[in-house]
């Protein structure tokens, strides 16, 4: 199960350009998120019950969670019916508060340049789209705890998120994170992660995916509440 951290060079086009190549990756990550939610959700609830058995306390809110899991299973099935046969279902995006904040900050910057496509009231909606794909949360990171890792301090929270989350890949086109524009292995006492560009990802890691057979509009199936 590859856990990936996606920076704004991918997440912004993925959420703003419904017909783009990065949106197709977003559909695959949403498929992975649903699969993770269905497969791990019930186990997580079971583990919660086991903890009560060991340490005491009371568990609540289970009914809504079970209902949510059933609906997630239906949405996953709807998406699976349309996706090409060999589309991976185990690619999972990792999120964190610094990652979401950076997405929102960049969104506001880019928004003024893409007017009239993007309005201020769209920002929280788009942030929710970003958060919904990131099914796993990195350990909370306080800003002062982020060490200097790259030549640009603005990139450090993203890289540190990937390292702390034990992510396998960090997808980015940032010159400080991927200096050779292909891939860069980052090693730190907090962990190790391979940073690579979107193009390298598709060529080296996801070359077997039938991208022509994926439609970016199918992302709505991952969220459609009718399922």
């Amino acid at each position, binding site marked *: 199960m590859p856990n990936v951290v996606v920076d704004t060079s991918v997440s912004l086009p993925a959420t703003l350009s419904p017909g783009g190549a990065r949106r197709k990756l977003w559909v695959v990550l949403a498929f992975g998120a649903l699969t993770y939610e269905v497969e791990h959700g019930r186990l997580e609830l079971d583990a919660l019950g086991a903890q009560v058995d060991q340490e*005491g306390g009371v568990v609540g809110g289970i009914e809504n969670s079970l209902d949510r899991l059933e609906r997630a299973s239906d949405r996953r099935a709807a998406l699976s019916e349309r996706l090409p046969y060999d589309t991976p279902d185990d690619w999972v995006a990792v999120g964190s508060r610094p990652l979401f904040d950076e997405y929102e900050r960049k969104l506001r910057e880019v928004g003024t340049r893409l007017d009239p496509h993007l309005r201020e009231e769209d920002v929280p909606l788009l942030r929710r789209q970003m958060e919904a794909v990131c099914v796993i949360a990195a350990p909370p990171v306080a800003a002062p705890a982020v060490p200097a890792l790259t030549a640009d301090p603005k990139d450090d929270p993203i890289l540190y998120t990937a390292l702390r989350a*034990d992510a396998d890949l960090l997808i980015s086109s940032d010159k400080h994170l991927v200096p050779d524009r292909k891939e860069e292995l980052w090693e730190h006492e907090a962990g190790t992660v391979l940073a690579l560009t979107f193009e390298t990802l598709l060529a080296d890691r996801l070359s077997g995916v039938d991208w022509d057979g994926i439609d970016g509009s199918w992302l709505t199936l991952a969220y459609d509440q009718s399922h």
Partner: protein
Amino acid sequence: MATTASKPQLLKVSEAAALLKVSEKTIRRWIEAESIPYLKLPSGSYRIPQGALLASLRGNYDLGAELRELDDRNADVTDEQVLAALSED
């Protein structure tokens, strides 16, 4: 990844609020409404499994309808346009 199904990562109310950028009051309201799973410890404090918490985000908003509206408006926006806007930094 630290979060595994067999050993859920449990968040304090303050940590859950910080993660989702909502108030602690909102998290407590979700707990009272039983809209998210929680563990109430013998001490009376709460712990929330973060996997289920993140999954619950999808239930609090109609993400599909929001996405359709955004996509309809941005149908002609390309990756290249967004990347060009990003590169102006």
